[in-house]
């Protein structure tokens, strides 16, 4: 935003020695709205970790005035979820956090969230979870091995039933596994490049993929492999702009292969310099695909636009502000649902080994 600074310096310093004055603007605290945040993660119940279901959580509190220090959590309320034929109650855990017993969130089910606070009108919201079998996303390299010099992996979204799309939107981000010694920590990579024609440009950065630099110093075979692969990818797609943090794909009716490549890469396990197996290397870096419902997408995009706007000095001078999109009737926040998928984005370690063997 240097351009903005520059222009305003010119105006303010050369021509317009203006001023800033404090004005009084007290918010009306008594009318502060209720905030509800709850996202359902529809999962495949056949996965072992979800045999017993999951504890759903929800945050419930009052928005705070701009001059106030703390949020006021809401402990006195009746909060429950209705889905299918069951009613799922939430119980208060403290600090505005509410939680259910272990439950199984199913796909293609409409859930209604109810919040009843004494002295206030009923707050409610609705979401229909995505069908888990609507979309199949597969790695092109599973089917056919791409040309030897092609380091850029591609994905294909295969549609199972367009009528069940329901406005779902794909959010994708890149992740790397960092081994901290005790636990695996997934680290979100700061940029993503794609050639998908329906990628939303709103979070384009001012960088090209070629401008990203490999992070850290490779110490082993895996590190060198990653470094070389990253360099080759830069040669192939260096002229693509990168999105900040994630890419949002607003339409899924595109049947052709596309790439989503995050960056910059780090040497695997570079934090601890651990030795990894070839199988682990294969899935060391992944793309997280989240199919989110329409209302959740509107909320997330609205939040992302807001966060990006904070980087602009002009936000302070030219307000285009509006409330973040919300489907909460009688309050703020979000009640949405999604399903996730993780896909590796680098080719097999054997392939990488072959390449790295030539170089190192």
């Amino acid at each position, binding site marked *: 935003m240097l351009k903005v600074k520059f222009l305003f310096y010119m105006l303010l310093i050369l021509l317009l020695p203006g001023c800033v004055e404090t004005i009084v603007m007290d918010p009306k605290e008594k009318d502060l709205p209720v905030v509800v945040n709850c996202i359902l993660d529809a999962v495949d119940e056949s996965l072992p970790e979800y045999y017993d279901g999951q504890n759903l959580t929800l945050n419930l509190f009052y928005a705070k005035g701009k001059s106030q220090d703390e949020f006021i959590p809401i402990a006195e309320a009746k909060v429950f979820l209705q889905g299918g034929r069951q009613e799922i109650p939430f119980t208060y855990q403290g600090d505005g956090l509410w939680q259910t017993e272990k439950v199984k969130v199913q796909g293609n089910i409409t859930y209604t969230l109810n919040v009843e606070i004494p002295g206030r009108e009923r707050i409610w919201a609705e979401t229909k979870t995505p069908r888990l079998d609507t979309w199949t996303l597969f790695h092109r390299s599973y089917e056919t091995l791409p040309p030897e010099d092609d380091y850029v992996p591609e994905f294909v979204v295969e549609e199972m039933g367009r009528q069940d799309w329901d406005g779902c939107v794909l959010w994708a981000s890149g992740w790397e596994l960092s081994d901290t010694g005790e636990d695996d920590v997934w680290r979100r990579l700061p940029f993503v490049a794609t050639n998908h024609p329906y990628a939303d440009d709103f979070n384009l950065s001012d960088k*090209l993929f070629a401008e990203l630099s490999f992070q850290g110093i490779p110490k082993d075979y895996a590190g060198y492999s990653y470094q070389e692969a990253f360099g080759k990818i830069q040669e192939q797609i260096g002229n693509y702009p990168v999105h900040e943090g994630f890419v949002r794909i607003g339409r899924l009716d595109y049947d052709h292969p596309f790439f989503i490549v995050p960056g910059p890469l780090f040497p695997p396990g570079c934090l601890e310099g651990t030795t990894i197996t070839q199988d682990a290397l294969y899935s060391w870096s992944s793309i997280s695909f989240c199919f989110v419902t329409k209302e959740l997408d509107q909320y997330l995009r609205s939040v992302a636009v807001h966060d*990006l706007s904070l980087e602009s000095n002009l936000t302070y001078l030219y307000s285009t502000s509006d409330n973040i999109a919300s489907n909460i009737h009688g309050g703020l926040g979000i009640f949405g649902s999604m399903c996730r998928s993780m896909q590796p984005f680098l080719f097999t370690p054997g392939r990488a080994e072959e390449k790295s063997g030539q170089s190192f």
Partner: protein
Amino acid sequence: MNHFHFLFLILIPTFFVISDIAARSQDVGEIRDTLRSARIVADRRATRDAGTRIVALPELRGMVSATGEADVVKYIQTMPGVSTGAEGSSAIYVRGGNLGSNLTTLDGVALYGGSHLLGLASAYPTDIVSEASFRMGGFRGDESNLTASHIDLRTVDGSFTNASCNVSASTLLLGATVSMPLVRDKVSLAASLRVSPLGPAFRAVQAITGGVLDSLSRTQAIVYDAFAKANWRINSDNSLSLSIFQSLDRYSYRYGGYSDEGMGWDNLIVNARHEGRLGNNWSVEDGFAYNRFTGRQGIVRAMHGTQNSLAILSSVNEWTADVVFARALPRKGDVRLGARTRFTLFNPGTSSTFKGGGPLLPLDSPMTDHSSHAWISTLHAQWDMQLWNRLDLMASIRLNVYGADESGNPAWQWRINPEAGLLARFAISPWLSMEATADWTVQYYHTLEGIPLGWSVDLLVPTSPACPPEQARQFYAGLFASFGQHRFTVGAYDKRMGHIVYFADASKLFSPAIAGWSNNIEVGSGTSRGIEFLYELDGERFDCRVAYTLSKTDRTFEQVNGGRTFPAKFDRRHIFNATASFVLKDDERRSIALTGLFTFQSGHRETVAAAEYPSVTLWGEGGMLDYFSSVNNYKMPDYIRLDLGCRFLFKTRRPQELNVGVYNVMNRHNPFSVIYDNRSREWKQVSLLPIMPSFNYRIAF
């Protein structure tokens, strides 16, 4: 019934009754006998079209401005029905329209980048303007592709007999004009050039102040405009003119010693016109024009050993051909028939890369391409007639055929949209007339507005399925009275706008994310109602003009403010402007006049957060969000400003003109915007223009 309907229905009949009573109390016969010539003047005034204001160029030169430069837009900002944008800027919002709903034309050719100096001045010098009119209702047949107003600028012709030259200097612009015959009585030339010393001045300030500007080097500000026009009198019936106008604003700097960044915009207009008389009372005006507007932001940076550039380009290239046939019909008025066709290449917010020979990039490859083509053809007709010596009517119709290929879509989409304008004026008495206009207008180009300064970096995008053509329907009715040197106009309007655009991420206009503009547009509607009052006094030594507007403007967008209607950003309830000029001395050697402008405007609207709450994301790292009770929920303090100036005319062998003045004499800190200081947790009001000197000098040779 709201208070606007009430005022509309009550005020005008009341004014009519009072005026009629006043008329009956006068000795009408004496006025007829003694002031016959005065009646002619009054009649000329009375036949001025409703909705049209003629910009008084001599009065304009005496106005005080922040740049010291006489400016047509600054004059228009004092008219009824006009709300201004940020203080000191060139932005105007006419009868509830958007900034982009206005059309400025130079000899009939659209001028899309109308500002200089970051919005402080117009891109064209007043010296090249021979006539300027401002129309916001009763649109003519040949006025199309607008929904709010038309600033119609006609350029000067060079002299066919004598050569003359003007040199001028103001606070921020230096200029010169020349008028001369190239072939005596056959071919003439008029030319003008203005440049700004802003760049050197900025570097001087930088050298003095340092500090925050230390990280900036190679600062440049190139601002100029140039105009040339040749006229050829072919014979007594035909003439040709060829004109070229170019304006340019470029601002650039180097940051941190490695990154060159800049922005700018420019206009180029080439216009060939022919005027001729045909037989049987027919005349013809026809021409061909090319018009280019480009806005550009760029970053040049060394990458991998080569100089690479990322550029965000926005351009409009337009070719226009038009013809108008006019004929005076005995006892039936005048008729004008015409056609205009224009082909436009849009390229808004396209990002491209260029390289210096490195291995990375193919040359000039568009990374995000929004280019598209549009074609507008308009057939138009206009009939001016007079009935019973009391009723003047003007009726115009336009039939537009619009076609465009959306970006990346080779299939052209076609639309047919009719437009119409009506103007009626009924002379109740020689000094009093009723007037009314009705307009149904369509605009195919949308302007995605950034800061309301009138900056020309706003994106111009064509109609598409996502952005259908803007439409407006407007009615105006009022009374016009003329008593000798005094003229009154009062009237009320009702306007409804459809398919107007709301650019949700205006701050993105200053970042590469501008390429994603198409994802941030909302289309909605708006209404505006208001009452306009204008009083003018043309005295021998004292002139004044008082304008007042009471209006209410709102917007409704399905995806903004929860679909609820909200006030427009520049919905200023009361706008009062008073200008005056008093001649202190006027003799054979010199003329000295005092000028002044007082303006009072209700504060504009800002969206201010009353509360905040944390967000959630797919990755858990939520920030803090603001809660707004509604969009544009805070009314800024009223805007009040007084400018005073003095105009000296030295009637020497080389006539000289000196305008000196003080802008914002009261040094009032008028509101520009509000900001929230996270550290102090306070809201703060930002003001830009304190008391400032204004200076303009001109000498003729």
